[in-house]
């Protein structure tokens, strides 16, 4: 963590890339993408919306909105239940989305995708179903100090229920995982290592393949929280080698209230149902029930069908734009934002310079992040202020909150400038920064 660092000089080729990307206003390909997001045409407090809070939730492209609308207008019925044509159509749309998402993350089979309400529920599913079955008193689970609360609290509750013990991998001063600390904790032969792919608090991109290999070497299973990674990176669970991967639709251009858990089929087979009721059984008698096949045994009750259909469309949208195209654009934004933000006097940026995504957590002089957010909002700029469900990480840095600006495929270099101008406005409101 350095203040006001300006060593991030851009090389000539970088500045060329920036030059090109700066032409967003004239680049027709980019405009086509941005125009897909009607909300970005809004004015907020008299200024054009500058939406820099995609790490909390992304905006939705028209084709996702239209797909959900068409499903509800023309195709809706309950799934997996009816013999009638509409129910079959709805079931097909639902299962097609499962297939799209399975292919997208490189799953061996679509039955390895369980639909949930989002990352939080995906992690809870593993903590309850796998955890209650396989975790015993004295067992250890490794988490990290940069986890979102949703990858901490379910394990704390499991630990309380079972008498298991949690250990947290330390974070370095520049916001990376301390791999030596990981190795030290792995010597204790944990049952599971559950960690985030990308930190929502700092944008750190963790060396996931390396972590999975080290965990497997001592016989631990691995769960990756992909909430902040799946929107930006091409995920391939085979290459990652992990055992579970959790992600949310709403951060990747899809609707809220839906997400997925990818899990290895053999693990899903031996895990008991998570919730119980309809949809997840194959036979119920008054004496007992038999569970449905994977993945249905984990999807009790009528699912969020329209949400799942929208999720599938969102993933197709990302594929059609191309995650590599998105990465080029985001890398250019990231470089430019790093260059501009590190040049702001009094600004402290958290997290590493390399191996990161375009999530920027910072503090600015003695201006509290809340005040910063209020002032930016009056200029139409939406950022997040607070602890970002990352309190252990904030404690680690001895702060209570940061301001966080996060970028996505639809953001522009001009919006980086707008952010920096907003910061100047904040300094002006506060009569300079201290």
């Amino acid at each position, binding site marked *: 963590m350095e203040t006001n660092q300006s060593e991030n000089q851009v090389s000539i080729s970088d500045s060329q890339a920036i030059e090109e990307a700066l032409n967003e206003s004239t680049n027709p390909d980019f405009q086509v993408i941005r125009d897909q997001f009607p909300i970005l045409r809004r004015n907020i*407090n*008299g200024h054009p919306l500058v939406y820099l809070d995609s790490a909390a939730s992304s905006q939705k492209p028209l084709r996702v909105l239209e797909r959900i609308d068409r499903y509800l207008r023309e195709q809706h019925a309950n799934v997996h239940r009816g013999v009638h044509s509409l129910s079959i159509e709805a079931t097909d749309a639902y299962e097609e989305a499962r297939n799209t998402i399975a292919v997208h993350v490189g799953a061996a089979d679509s039955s390895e995708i369980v639909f949930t309400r989002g990352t939080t529920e995906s992690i809870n599913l593993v903590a309850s179903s796998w955890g209650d079955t396989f975790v015993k008193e004295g067992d250890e689970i490794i988490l990290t100090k940069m986890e979102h609360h949703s990858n901490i609290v379910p394990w704390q509750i499991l630990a309380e229920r079972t008498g298991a013990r949690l250990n947290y991998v330390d974070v370095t001063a520049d916001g990376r995982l301390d791999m030596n600390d990981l190795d030290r904790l792995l010597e204790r032969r944990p049952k599971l290592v559950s960690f985030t792919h990308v930190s929502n608090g700092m944008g750190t991109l963790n060396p996931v393949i390396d972590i999975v290999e080290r965990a497997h070497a001592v016989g631990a299973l691995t769960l990756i929280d992909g909430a902040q990674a799946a929107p930006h990176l091409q995920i391939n669970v085979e290459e990652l080698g992990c055992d579970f991967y959790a992600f949310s639709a709403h951060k990747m251009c899809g609707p809220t209230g839906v997400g997925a858990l990818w899990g290895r089929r053999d693990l899903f087979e031996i895990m008991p149902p998570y919730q119980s009721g309809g949809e997840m059984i194959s036979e119920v008698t008054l004496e007992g029930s038999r569970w449905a096949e994977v993945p249905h045994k984990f999807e009790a009750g009528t699912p969020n069908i329209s949400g799942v259909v929208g999720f599938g469309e969102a993933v197709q949208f990302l594929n059609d734009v191309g995650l590599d195209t998105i990465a080029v654009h985001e890398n250019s934004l990231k470089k430019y934002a790093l260059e*501009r933000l590190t*040049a*702001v*006097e*009094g600004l402290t940026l958290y997290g590493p310079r390399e191996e990161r995504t375009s999530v920027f957590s910072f503090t600015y*002089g*003695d*201006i*509290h*992040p*809340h*005040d910063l957010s*209020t*002032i930016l909002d*009056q*200029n139409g700029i939406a950022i997040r*202020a*607070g*602890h970002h469900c990352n*309190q252990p990480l*904030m404690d680690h840095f001895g702060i*209570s*909150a940061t301001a966080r600006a996060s970028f996505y495929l639809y953001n522009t270099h001009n919006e980086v*400038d707008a952010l*920096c*101008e907003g*910061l*100047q*406005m904040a*300094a*002006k*409101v*506060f*009569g*300079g*920064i*201290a």
Partner: protein
Amino acid sequence: MTDPQNPARTDREIPSTLNTLYRELILDHYRKPRNKRALDDATHAITMNNPLCGDVIELLLRVEDGRIAEACFLGRGCSISQASASMLTGRVRNKTPEEVLELSKKFTQLLHGDESLLSDSDLGDLRALAGVSKFPVRIKCALLGWNCLDELTEGEVLPAESP
């Protein structure tokens, strides 16, 4: 383009809503908080936080003969929560629990936009926080210290002599 070397240099006008929120008096209390220290002979203390943002305020009171002889606070948070707590410690001195409750009610009404209270001298400096009414999400910030006070008075803890 902006000039990164000069933080406060922007040609843009500060929107008037921001000027009414961040009055000089508020920034002054934020940067130079009054009575922000431990109170060794406190008879009452309570800590409250805003779980949404992690702001924390600990309010410490010394009550003598049924009146607040001294009020101090500790904690961290945004300019609004800190300035409000700082002003609070000045306004509640020598007040009885009933008077404090009355003041707290009036202040809450002010934050909810009751402009008739702008001429209420009992509120004193606190009236500088009236601009918060235009920012409903920030009302919680302004009330954090007062929630501590309400908790102490409504819990009828206040009249007691010792902690």
